[in-house]
């Protein structure tokens, strides 16, 4: 089980032969991910990393039966790549690219939704089902197999959390980095529901940050729909107003989007909220021993 991806998932890479695409696709192959080909317009018919290269996503899907695409194309072309994937019948696009214009992502996301394609990201570390399938840029070895589902807006904070969870003697079922941009694909709500329904997940850790109100919506959703225990940490408790903190979406505007507001909402939804990022692992031990 686990969610979204597993050892049988067939993956293609868009932006396969670029620098980032090459490095991370090799790492994913080493991890055991079933990468069955890549797309680089103009290089179709060749082989790369012992996999076939195609000119179009349509061709790649037809020839390989891939259902997931990992996207590394540069920001100016990422919306095009996402829409091509959607049009070609890909079921899930994992968008790693950082720096995509918001307007482009708005259109790409609307089209993906119309075509029933799920997206993760952009500007995210990707998704990993521990010891089965890694689609993204995370260091795979940190994610020891276990029964905790992890959802996070941040990359390194995902690794930090997974590491703490493992050090406490637990492990990860699936970890999803949803990205910190203003418009993102799968978000807390959908993923919480998937983890709730997953027989291999017993508890959930969600890592949020300042900006937007996805965490507030998640709190409301948890209250009504999630019975598995949840731990949360919100980064940016000390962030000043009106300043963008690295991620394009991490900005507090007016009184909305503060860490405090999100922490309160999650607490009142019954989530175990930790104030210190060093306490994530300990909190998992606490909720799992109840």
């Amino acid at each position, binding site marked *: 089980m686990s969610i979204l991806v597993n050892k049988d998932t067939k993956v293609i890479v868009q932006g396969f032969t670029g620098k980032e695409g090459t490095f991370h696709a090799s790492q994913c192959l080493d991890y055991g991910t079933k990468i069955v080909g890549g797309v680089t317009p103009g290089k179709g018919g060749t082989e790369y990393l012992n996999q076939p290269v195609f000119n179009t996503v349509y061709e790649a899907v037809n020839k390989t039966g891939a259902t997931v695409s990992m996207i590394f194309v540069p920001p100016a072309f990422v919306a095009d790549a996402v829409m091509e994937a959607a049009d070609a019948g890909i079921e899930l696009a994992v968008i790693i690219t950082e720096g995509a214009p918001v307007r482009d992502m708005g259109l790409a996301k609307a089209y993906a939704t119309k075509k029933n394609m799920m997206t993760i990201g952009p500007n995210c570390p990707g998704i990993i089902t521990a010891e089965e399938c890694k689609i993204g840029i995370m260091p795979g070895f940190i994610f020891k197999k276990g029964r905790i589902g992890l959802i996070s807006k941040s990359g390194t904070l995902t690794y930090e959390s997974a590491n703490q969870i493992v050090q406490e003697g637990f492990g990860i079922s699936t970890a999803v980095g949803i990205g910190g941009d203003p418009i993102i694909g799968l978000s807390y709500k959908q993923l919480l529901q998937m983890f709730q329904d997953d027989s291999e997940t017993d508890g959930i850790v969600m890592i949020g940050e300042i900006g937007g109100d996805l965490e507030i919506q998640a709190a409301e959703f948890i209250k009504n729909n999630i019975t598995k225990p949840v731990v949360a940490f919100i980064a*940016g408790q000390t962030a000043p107003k009106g300043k963008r903190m690295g991620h394009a979406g991490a900005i507090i505007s007016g009184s909305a989007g503060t860490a405090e507001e999100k922490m309160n909402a999650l607490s009142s939804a019954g989530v175990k909220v930790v104030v210190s990022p060093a306490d994530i692992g300990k909190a998992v031990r606490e909720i799992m021993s109840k």
Partner: protein
Amino acid sequence: MNIHEYQAKELFKHYGVPTPRGKVAFSVDEAVKNAEELGGNIWVVKAQIHAGGRGLGGGVKLARSLDEVKTWTSKILGMQLVTHQTGPEGKLVQKVYIEEGADIKKEYYLGIVLDRAKEMPVMMASTEGGMEIEEVAKNHPEKIVKVAIDPIIGFQGFHGRNLAFGLGLSGDEMKYFTKFASALYKVYIDKDVDMIEINPLIKNGKGEFLALDGKVGFDDNALYRHPSIEKMRDLSEEHPTEIEAKASNLSYVKLDGNVGCMVNGAGLAMATMDIIKHEGGQPANFLDVGGGANPQTVAKGFEIILKDQNVKAIFVNIFGGIVRCDRVANGILEATKITQVNVPVIVRLDGTNAIEAAEILRNANIPNIISADNLVDGAKKAVALANK
């Protein structure tokens, strides 16, 4: 990226969004000349800085003669204008906008922002012009009308009518308003705008609408396709260290504490600031050195952090994933040879080869480089050493 009111109004004019006539001035003489050219017998002298609340701070004045234009301009140019958005130190005013006096029958608010939940732009209007929209939203949410605009269909007549009727407009006024709103939406979409705010939007005696103010911020990720907008960047409005960091692809935000932070990844960087606070200290900055954390970026990071005289200790918090910690440790040692670091540096490296990394730091035997066992240990040591 944000621009000044006068630049926003230039952009508006280009798109047929009506504004009163005006001209920017960098000196008193220029201001008087502008007023003469504009004609009439009443002008407004407006300080041009990137902050709201300029009027309350004394940065916007009405002049009823050319002499008054001169007087007010000489007072405003060169002043440290303090508003609720500038912080107590205020901002130096280097230019003023001279605008013709407007015939104001009523003030409104009009803005466009991205609604992240709906994933589309939302246009907001209110009859409470001149008030902060956050305040109106809190105290009188019923006085705000909103329409979400699906980018696939763009701005349609019904969007304009829904807003106009919501504001109590009808007849020609409704038509004028809809035309104004439609032109403004075009600016938002064409230029990859992140946020537009017109506060106040005014209605004159003829029932026409004009932007009396204009605040526009752009999506930084899209600036590459708008060179004309990029040219409007006013570097004097940005923190010099933040500009320097950006030039080296580092993401830096200055804060007020004394514990410098150098972290890989934006989320972990924020979490590092949080744990410093949690352990009783105050972070001096946000700094994301990115995934690589090689000697050059780490050295640049040290240089940028140390520009802030308040910094008494630096907490380096790196989670090495694909970048191995032993390489990062060597990078840190290398960096201290490039940049002179004379405050304690507390280093917490976790992830791939963390044990070897700690060994490398210990063996280097540099007295001000202190290895931390974990996140809490690092934060505690950094806070203690900064407050010593």
